[in-house]
């Protein structure tokens, strides 16, 4: 079974800290990582290759430094990698990105299954998987929490719902988006990682011409949604720092809660509480 895995390099936005002088978030120096959901997708591909054989190609659209994410993916065991990189791709919304990825997958051609993570921790839209699937006219299953059975022409999976799950049979070729609960991704193998950084590593870099797209179809020019304004979120509050030993701070906190409107929500202050 030949598999294409879509991955994205993202800043590790979960490790942000406050600058003690300005009180603002420090956005520089954030580590770049493979998007967490995408590692689970890679691991799923490795598992399927172990049972069914075939080739795993990993594909990413990003700036030149995204090659590090692809090297890591090769380190985890992918057979080859393709980086889609071109100034023309910059500023793309999911419409333009799914078009670009779709054209690249058409060029890769030989695949039975496409795997993606459910969503990226920087964009958080969860739109790429379904939009690529529609572009390529493939059936899709999202929120996949387990692969039950896989064969050359069909796959049976579990799809997580809010209150349980569904078991779904899907004809191949198809696209699946996976969630974290599906597996524990392996660490990259050191030997493979080193090989991935060498000149002969199986990494290709494609630009707009390589996938036969025009600049107006991709990037900001090819997008259907545009940012027209950004502003600081209004959710900064005038916080009060409570000082003292544990008993004191808790007493102060409860006193403030009792005085506030929120007190009625709290069962402990119910009924006869004098407010």
């Amino acid at each position, binding site marked *: 079974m030949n598999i294409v895995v879509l991955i994205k390099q993202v800043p590790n*936005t*979960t490790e*942000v*800290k*406050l600058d003690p002088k300005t009180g603002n*978030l420090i*956005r*520089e120096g954030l580590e770049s990582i493979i998007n967490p959901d995408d590692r689970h997708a890679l691991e799923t591909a490795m598992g399927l290759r172990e049972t069914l054989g075939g080739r795993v190609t990993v594909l990413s659209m990003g700036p030149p430094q995204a090659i590090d994410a692809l090297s890591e993916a090769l380190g985890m065991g992918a057979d080859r990698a393709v980086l889609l990189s071109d*100034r*023309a791709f910059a*500023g793309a919304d999911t419409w333009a990105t799914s078009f670009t990825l779709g054209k690249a997958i058409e060029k890769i051609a030989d695949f039975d299954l496409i795997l993606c993570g459910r969503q990226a*921790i920087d964009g*958080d*839209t*969860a739109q*790429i998987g*379904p*939009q690529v699937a529609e572009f390529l006219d493939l*059936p*899709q299953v*999202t*929120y996949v929490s387990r692969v039950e059975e896989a064969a050359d022409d069909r796959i*049976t999976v579990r799809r*997580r719902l809010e*209150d*349980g*799950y*569904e*078991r779904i*049979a*899907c004809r191949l070729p198809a696209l699946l988006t996976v969630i974290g609960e599906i597996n524990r991704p392996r660490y990259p193998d050191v030997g493979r990682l080193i090989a991935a950084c060498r000149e002969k590593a199986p990494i290709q870099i494609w630009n707009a011409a390589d996938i036969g797209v025009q600049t107006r179809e991709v*990037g900001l020019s090819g*997008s*259907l*949604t*545009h*940012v*027209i*304004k*950004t*502003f*600081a*979120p209004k*959710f900064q*509050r005038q*916080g009060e*720092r409570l000082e003292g030993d*544990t*008993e004191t701070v808790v*007493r102060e*906190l*409860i006193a403030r809660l009792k005085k506030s*409107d929120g007190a009625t*929500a*709290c*069962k*402990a*202050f*119910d*009924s006869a509480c004098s407010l």
Partner: protein
Amino acid sequence: MTIWIEIDLCDGCRRCLRVCPYDALEIQDGKARVLDRCTSCGACLEVCRNDAISSDAEEREIPDFSDHRDVWVFAEQRDGRLNPVSLELLGKARELAADLGEKVAAVLLGHGVAGIAETLIDHGADTVYLAEDPTLERFRTTAYARVMADLIRDRKPGILLLGASHIGRDLAPRLARRVGAGLTADCTDLSIDPDERILLQTRPAFGGNVMATIANRYSRPQMATVRPGVMEMNPMPGHGGEVVRESVSLREEDIRTRVLEVVREKKERQDITRAKVIVAGGRGVGGSEGFTLLRELAEVMGGEVAGTRIAAEEGWIPAENQVGQTGKTVRPEIYIACGISGAIQHRAGMMNARYIIAVNTDPRAPIFQVADWSIVGDLHEVVPEMTRQLRREADKTTSEEG
């Protein structure tokens, strides 16, 4: 696509610096300069009052969309039960339609679900487009996307809203791609721009601490998803509306997925999106034993326990109690964040709580930026102390009654 500054036109006013979500602009010798970090998102292009910021993107003509009107809401149902988010969206749709001078419609797909139409009308739908067929009984992406796409092409709505539920986040992007529409996910606010009469979609964005307002000028319908619990229902009992039956021409053999089985997992606890008090734990709680302390506090307060992505991944809380951008959005009266650093993804899920209390040993934790009351301390001491003192309050109250 490249963005650059026309130095002669720049007066160093710094407006562009302020709106850049990536810190990709700086001032050098009194003029703005674009750094390598720039992602060409275009947020700065609109804000420069001297037209000093240029890009090589082609000028695009805005098409004439005067034949697209009305605000539609996808009415999500499973097994004949309506997802409340659809009613919340109808509430918002009425506001948007009022600003536009247009109407509201709900789109209901399924089999044997006609009874739901009345509820939709009672919450604001002027029309319910009803498409029923055995192939639509259970949600399947391609079946629903095809029927919706045909409806959209026939009736040309101006705006389409869907709940950002598991179904919504599966269907919306597929449908958007199919009909060639721009889609914005997880909007926290929606409004109509009075000049352009287009939908302004606001959401937290770019993994940084900014909110972005997004517009869709070049396609229709303008599509957006919104999380459950963000908008408010607006019941309108006695509101009149009509049901329009749409024909469906799907063949089972054309749909390449089949639902073999649906397994409901027993929910021991209340849905956290409806809880009035939430006690949440993050990495600092350290393990399931720590969460016992949080549960005791939640019990005394009559609330629910929730947590961050780490807590869910480690199995300290069930996945459906995760709050945040990859979890749920909650709007309780009281939110107590214990051992939570306050990463932007978590804050996005709880920032609209009425009162936020944060307990963390790290004085630099970002959570303190959004807390009404902050305690720099160890939750393993603070939380049990809260439980103790609150139990005394509760006992005092009952003994006063007695």
